[in-house]
């Protein structure tokens, strides 16, 4: 049975802009699922639909439903979702600028009532993953660097101890070493604590390396799905998402001429 399932959702922004045109996807329990796609394909919108944060952006779900642990969740509030174990890391960081890094992390634990020592443990765990945050713990998040904010956002979501995390572009603006670390953490949580992940990622390379399963979204439709390894070996994915051609990786310098992009759907 799938842990999270999205069934044929359709989303319209501002009453007129149709963004998702019937997207369905499943996340089985304890798996990592990657959601891939070009800019504007609708990845973030899909995630926001699941976490019901769409309402604040004047987006409407006009069709379809979302189920989590076998229950419909599209009418719940984000708070209830977090309590049920579904957390989202939003695209574009969204740290609380006036709160310090540590306060930011603490708000992450809002839904859990923890004793002081437990809180400290939770914090330590995040600091363990992101030592850089420990150093900057007392600075206002608004004044930290882009990458630090990204780490803070991820750390904040971990504080809720979710059983399912929606990650929107976790690698954006993160140094390569840390990217690997973040995905390491994902794998770690997945393996040790059985946390499921749905991650929207542009860094297809890394994403497919760590994910079990992948969906490719284009223009608001799922155009391809399959096991991660399968996708990674698909010729089209290789060419368009991994930047490989027949003879290994191509240099970015050689990409000078306009190529016609292959579209799966007209």
């Amino acid at each position, binding site marked *: 049975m799938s842990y999270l399932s999205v069934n044929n959702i359709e989303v*319209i922004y*501002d*009453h*007129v*802009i*149709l963004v998702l045109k019937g997207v369905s996807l499943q996340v089985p329990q304890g798996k990592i699922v990657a959601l891939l796609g070009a800019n504007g394909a609708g990845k973030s919108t899909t995630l926001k639909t699941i976490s019901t944060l769409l309402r604040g952006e004047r987006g409407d779900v006009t069709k379809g439903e979302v189920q989590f642990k076998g229950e419909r969740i599209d009418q719940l509030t984000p708070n209830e979702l977090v309590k049920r174990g579904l957390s989202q890391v939003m695209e574009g960081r969204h740290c609380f600028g006036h709160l310090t890094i540590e306060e930011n992390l603490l708000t992450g634990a809002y839904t859990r009532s923890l004793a002081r020592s437990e809180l400290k443990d939770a914090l330590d765990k995040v600091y363990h993953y992101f030592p850089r945050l420990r150093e900057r713990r007392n600075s206002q998040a608004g004044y930290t660097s882009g990458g630090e904010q990204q780490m803070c956002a991820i750390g904040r979501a971990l504080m809720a101890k979710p059983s399912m995390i929606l990650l929107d572009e976790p690698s954006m603006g993160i140094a390569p070493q840390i990217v690997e670390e973040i995905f390491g953490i994902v794998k770690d949580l997945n393996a040790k604590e059985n946390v499921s992940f749905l991650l929207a990622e542009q860094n297809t390379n890394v994403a497919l390396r760590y994910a079990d399963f992948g969906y490719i979204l284009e223009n608001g439709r799922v155009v391809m799905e399959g096991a991660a390894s399968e996708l990674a070996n698909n010729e089209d994915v290789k060419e368009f998402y991994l930047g490989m051609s027949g003879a290994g990786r191509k240099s970015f310098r050689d990409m000078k001429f306009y190529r016609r992009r292959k579209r799966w759907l007209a």
Partner: protein
Amino acid sequence: MFYREAGQFKTSYEADGQILPIRQDRIALLTTLAIALLVLPMVASPYMLSAIFIPFLIFSLAALGLNILTGYAGQLSLGTAAFMAVGAFASYNFVLRIPGLPLLLAFVLGGLCAAMVGMAFGLPSLRIRGFYLAASTLATQFFVVWCLTKIGWLTNYSSSGVITAQKMEILGYAFDTPARKYLLVLAVVALMALLAKNMIRSNVGRSWMAVRDMDVAAEVIGIRLMRTKLLAFAVSSFYCGVAGALYAYAYLGTVEPEAYNLDLSFRILFMIIIGGVGSILGSFLGAAFIVLLPVFLNILAHGLALPTTVASNLELMVFGALIIFFLIVEPHGLARLWQIGKEKLRLWPFPH
């Protein structure tokens, strides 16, 4: 079906830069203008002209002025009425003290005085932002009204601080009936709206919007904050000043400084928020909403034959509730609602 731009191709940047790129819109605007100019003065009752259309146009102009400052340049202001007062009292003094000064020139001079006051009070905007600035602009509001009550010269030492606007005459032609006053106001407002639109679509307007949307980034691309903000204050106050002068000359006739009180400032702010912040059309829609709704509610309440006290309070409540309702339906104002309507129309008969 009929509202499509399909088949209308632009062959020059000039054509593309037109105020209304879609032909149907152009036709609609011209028709509206023609009706306003030719038909209304003939058919509308004096009541409609002098109690609805004239104040509507004047408030639209003031709202336009505030929209330039708040909607386009992003500086929230609660001092609109003060700038209007400066425009009115300055125009009055110009006409009074310079015999033979053409009335329209007096309005322009009044507007310029307002612009200067606006710039002076706009200076703090270089450092202060958002609600802090808004609250500070109240200083303008109270200070200007205070000056007008204190400095006798400004009101020609009238014992009660009241000024009576002189008769309106341009080139010997007296604007004394509601229809004539209406036409004068319409001409001024239409012209100034056109100028505003031009500013908005050229470099000044873009600089304002850039400063509004992200002033740090605007600075980095070479927009000078001080100049841009002060210009916005000046232009906005100019518009408000002219509106204030019209308010005195074409609408109230006799005014005391108190007529330009905080309440008026707020009403104009409501207009732009309800109508649409950062939209010229919105200034007009908002003014219409705020001018007409209470009248409408009042008439409605009378129709229901409620006890007057109850009716008046209900009116106030419904007015408040409707503001909230419209904000919930469309936080970006009536202008946006209008635009969405048009977008839907363009897609029609398909829903998306």
